[in-house]
């Protein structure tokens, strides 16, 4: 293989005039972090609402939850991003469509919402399973004490359900970060995007993607560690994972 390895490339100035190639990659990392965190918040909030809807006795509620989950998890993420970015503005009334197209930083917002909604289906299903794994008597006991349905979920069911699903939620957070790379297809220059443009400018493809890989690994390692700490912090003495 005729390849000129050049690990000093990171310290060389990039052609955009924004500092070195390393600065370029780090700027991409920041975008990746921003879009992933925003997507994860959207996924957690809407996933929680939908997951709760799916556990309510009301037929309408569980039907809404069912439709949401099946819509967002049965379509490839790539197709969903295209839908939000290219198709939706054309389907909306003219003024709304125009507003979407002229939105500053449109790829960023579309990616955050698109990845967020895609992940919300997975959060919803896991939360539903977490709530379902609690003894039926828990809901009965808090209902019998006079707590309303909202209070029962807020103070009794959700605090336990979230503790139970924390380990799989960690994986979903990591998936959110990894899925954010798909946003490159709608023009978001995040970490993968910056690695690609570094490759195009410098022809150092292996160095560029090695660096991107390392940065993804580091970022996910931080997330895993933080979630471990959170797990330990909320562990209940004497109860399953508690000590």
């Amino acid at each position: 293989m005729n390849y000129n390895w050049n690990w000093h490339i990171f310290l060389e100035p990039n052609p955009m005039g924004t500092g070195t190639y390393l600065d370029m990659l780090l700027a991409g990392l920041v975008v990746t972090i921003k879009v992933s965190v925003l997507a994860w918040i959207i996924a957690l909030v809407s996933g929680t609402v939908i997951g709760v809807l799916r556990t309510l006795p009301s037929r309408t509620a569980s039907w809404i939850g069912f439709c949401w989950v099946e819509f967002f998890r049965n379509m490839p993420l790539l197709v969903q991003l295209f839908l939000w970015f290219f198709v939706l503005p054309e389907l909306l009334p003219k003024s709304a469509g125009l507003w979407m197209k002229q939105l500053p930083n449109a790829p960023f917002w579309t990616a955050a919402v698109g990845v967020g909604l895609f992940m919300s289906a997975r959060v919803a299903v896991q939360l539903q399973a977490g709530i379902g794994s609690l003894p039926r008597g828990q809901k009965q006991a808090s209902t019998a004490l006079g707590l309303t349905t909202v209070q029962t979920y807020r103070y009794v069911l959700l605090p336990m359900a979230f503790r139970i699903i924390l380990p799989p939620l960690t994986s979903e957070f990591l998936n959110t970060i990894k899925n954010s790379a798909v946003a490159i297809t709608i023009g978001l220059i995040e970490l993968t995007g910056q690695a690609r443009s570094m490759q195009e400018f410098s022809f150092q493809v292996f160095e560029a993607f090695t660096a991107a890989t390392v940065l993804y690994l580091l970022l996910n390692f931080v997330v895993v560690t933080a979630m471990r700490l959170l797990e330990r912090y909320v562990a209940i003495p004497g109860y399953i994972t508690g000590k």
Partner: protein
Amino acid sequence: MIEINHVNKWYGPSFQALKDCTTSVAKGEVVVVCGPSGSGKSTLIKCVNALEPIQGGDIILDGIKVNDPKTDLPKLRSRVGMVFQHFELFPHLRIIDNLCLAQEKVLGRKHDDAVVTAMKLLDRVGLKDHAKKFPAELSGGQQQRVAIARALAMNPIAMLFDEPTSALDPEMISEVLDVMVDLAREGMTMMVVTHEMGFANKVADRVIFMDRGEIVEDAKKADFFGTPRSDRAQKFLSKILQH
């Protein structure tokens, strides 16, 4: 206090769990409900505070119709204490917080007042020293005593017990029954589903015997243990009293 008039309940279209059940519990009365498993005793007691809906008949609690859609069920339920077979303490809350949650969220008591009430009741069931522990750190008998204290913290007008000792090791049954006997002697209105015939003999005013969803026998304690009128009640008694 509790009036149950011609109550019918079905699970699904075909299985009738309660068949035309009629009985009542007067103020200060202790009524024990017994019968073989699957006879509908737990279902009956769960209908009293509308944890289970009924399809026919009426249940009237302290003058308020439970199965009236206009009834404020959370408010009504907060006035009736309920103790479950599997304790159903909230595992993520310390014992003291288990006792305070509904006092604060349902009755709107101030935290300090709720703590005072809670500590008084924990003292009464002999568990004051365990206030800061989590449920999983207590034995079954201790957890059930906490569950009774949690129900009492709402100043209930009546108490419902759904097989409160069935999930306990034999050596822990008496510590729970002692608390219940004290309660009965203080004049608490109680409806108790149990197989503890010793408890029934000691404090019950009346005993109800159920079989296959029907109230087969509803008699004063002396009559029930003396000469039950039905064959089925006699057979049941001979089986559980022979040891």
